[in-house]
């Protein structure tokens, strides 16, 4: 119980609403023992009129909450004043001075080149600076509001509880539908392909509670179970609350729209194609005749047969070798790295000129997957990156 108090937070408003009801409840039962319980409500924080006992922990909690409140109030005040000062310094109107203006002004006045942006000077409203804390979970007598309080993770278990409730509901619904001889409509089926479950950290933030690995896997299992039900679309809102869209991936896979060059041909440039240490930019022009220029030279830029093959593979694979022109600029790295970088660039750019079916084939052939591997450094005390010296007893 005392441990829980550490999690306390400003509950005052909440408290005031709840107060009367709680007080009345307690008065019916507890008044009998007033003589023996020596504690007296002597708090000046909450104006509790009843003479009920006020828990000591609760009292200290309330004090701290009030302190925090006052602290936040002064901070907010100071921030407002500071904002006006800053607007005055920069010669702007303080009424229309926004947070963006503040950030720009701070960057101008305190230029810092520190790598981590979080380590640079900042001036933010106190709500953002001071981390959020959990609100009070119990009333002034120590009675928790939440029926799952003693699980230690009321919010998490609430979610699980809700999930099971939904599952039961849907099962019942399914039974009735089966009795009526009705099949679930496939058009309404829940579409989950574009999103994924919240990861553990996000879930922790959402629930304002620490979540262990085991609990997280339980959460996933329960959610999957719910989703697997035939009528899961009825609980769509609930499910979608715990999923986030896969925006980044689908965006990255969007085909670049070709631009029109000065010669009237379409072209697509893929920047920063990498392989090993090599990095290059590849431009594909359509329609073309199969000309290839690499750093101003033709395909003879590469001496080895392997490199040329690498380069031509996406073109041959999509049957485009006579239909496009390729210009590549590549630097650093070695021969095979450069060839691999250009290969990736060609494959990536070619998507703009070919059918979806070909793109899918290219993806399956692994042409659209960048190869991020680079050489691992040698470690002192051993022969190579991982390899150890021959072990000899003496």
């Amino acid at each position, binding site marked *: 119980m005392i441990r829980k108090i550490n999690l306390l937070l400003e509950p005052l408003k909440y408290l005031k609403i709840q107060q009367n009801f709680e007080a009345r409840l307690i008065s019916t039962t507890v008044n009998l023992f007033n003589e023996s319980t020596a504690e007296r409500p002597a708090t000046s924080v909450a104006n509790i009129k009843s003479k009920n006992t006020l828990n000591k922990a609760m009292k200290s909690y309330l004090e701290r909450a009030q302190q925090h409140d006052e602290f936040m109030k002064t901070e907010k005040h100071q921030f407002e004043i500071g904002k006006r000062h800053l607007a005055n310094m920069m010669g702007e109107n303080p009424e229309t001075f926004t947070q963006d203006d503040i950030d720009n002004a701070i960057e101008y006045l305190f230029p810092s080149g520190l790598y981590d942006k979080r380590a640079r000077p900042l001036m933010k409203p106190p709500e953002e600076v001071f981390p959020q804390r959990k609100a009070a979970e119990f009333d002034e007598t120590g009675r928790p509001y939440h029926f799952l309080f003693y699980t230690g993770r009321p919010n998490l278990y609430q979610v699980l509880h809700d999930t099971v409730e939904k599952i039961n509901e849907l099962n019942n619904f399914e039974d009735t539908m089966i009795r009526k001889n009705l099949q679930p409509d496939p058009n309404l089926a829940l579409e989950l392909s574009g999103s994924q479950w919240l990861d553990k950290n996000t879930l922790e933030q959402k629930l304002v509670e620490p979540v262990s690995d085991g609990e997280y896997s339980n959460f996933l299992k329960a959610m999957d179970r719910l989703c697997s039900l035939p009528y899961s679309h009825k609980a769509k809102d609930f499910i979608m609350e715990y999923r986030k869209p896969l925006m980044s991936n689908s965006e990255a896979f969007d085909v670049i729209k070709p631009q029109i060059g000065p010669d009237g041909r379409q072209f697509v440039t893929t920047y920063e194609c990498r392989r090993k240490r090599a990095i290059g930019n590849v431009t594909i022009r359509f329609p073309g005749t*199969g000309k*290839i220029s690499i750093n101003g030279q*033709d*395909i003879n830029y590469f001496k080895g047969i392997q490199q040329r093959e690498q380069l*031509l593979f996406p073109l*041959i694979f999509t*049957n485009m*070798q006579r239909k496009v022109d390729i210009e590549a600029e590549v630097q650093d790295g070695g021969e095979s790295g450069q060839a691999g970088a250009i290969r990736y660039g060609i494959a990536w750019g070619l998507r703009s000129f070919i059918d979806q079916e*070909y793109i899918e084939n290219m993806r399956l052939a692994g042409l659209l997957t960048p190869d991020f591997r680079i050489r691992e450094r040698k470690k002192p005390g051993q022969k190579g990156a991982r390899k150890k010296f021959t072990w000899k007893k003496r």
Partner: protein
Amino acid sequence: MFKTTADLLIKSHPLRVVQGRFFAAAVAEPKSEDRLQSFRTFEADPSKHNTNHQSQFYKVDSTDKKVLFQYGGLPKSFQIQAKTFNETCLMVRDPSIQIINHLKTIDYTQPPIKFVLYGKKGCGKTLTLAHIMHYAYKNDFLIVHVPWVGNWMRRCKDTSNSETKPGFIDLNIDAAAWLVHFKTQNANILENPELKTTIDIQWNKRECTPIGSSLLELIDQGINRIRFASNCVNYLAEEVKKLSQSGLCRTLLAIDGFNAFFYPNTRVFTEKKEMVPPSRVTLTEGFLNLTKFDWKNSVIVVTVDEIAIAEKDQISHYPRYLLGKSGFEHLDPFLPVEVKDYSEKEHQSIMDYYRERKWIHSYPGQNDELYFLSGGNPFRLMNLCNAL
């Protein structure tokens, strides 16, 4: 890699490829006849070759080949392939037609015209030269042909100090070998009794070749007395010059890797292991003498090649760089003729030729793929096809 590419293509388009195969099976037979027309010419006489025969193959008669190229003159890899194919076929290409046309029309009473063949490594300079030599052979030229100067300057057999010229180095074995080569190439013409020496040549106290002895005797002297081979070459050069001047014969001077005569870092060493520049090799003198303007009734075709010089200096394939200042001034004015990489048509032709010889298995899209992979370079294409 090829196989995987093909497989993947087949996987992604099963229908189309099956059609293609069917096509190949059904149409291949009649088509091969047409193709035969397009990539082969039965005109075996190089003097009748013109632009209509461009990028077609003609067969070099085996007896001609034996005479002309018995002791070198064709690249080794080409010779091996010719042996495998059981015939020697040369492609009629643009630079050789150009030069042959010039040879037909130029005025032989004027000082010789110099043609310089240049081009990247492995694009067919030597084979162009071979084609021109075949023309010259058919037209009864006296052929003075050096198969590869690099063999003298960079891979000489032996060295000895010159007896007649102090400070000079003789490459006697190489010189004798060359005399044999010269003798075989020009066996027909040398039988002509009018070809006689014009001066007395005193080899040493006892041996001399008197004035009026036949050219064959001079050559035999060089071959038999290897000590005198280098000097013999120089005398021979002088004699050939005089005979041409007098109109007794018409000469084609064909030197492959001519720039080796001007590349200072040779691998010819004296006994003290000092490097000998080409200007101090006796053989150089004779051939530089031949490439001067002061004679007529002759024509000069030389090639400049990156491979004739040390690898570290192989920067550019252009003649001015390869010849150097002195070499350029020696040859100037010359007519530069570039030997280019294969054009599409030539590529098509050689691929058909390889297929006809059953040298490669074909698959759809092979021509394109190989053209891109080789970058149109004949030598590289040959190497690629070896594995197919």
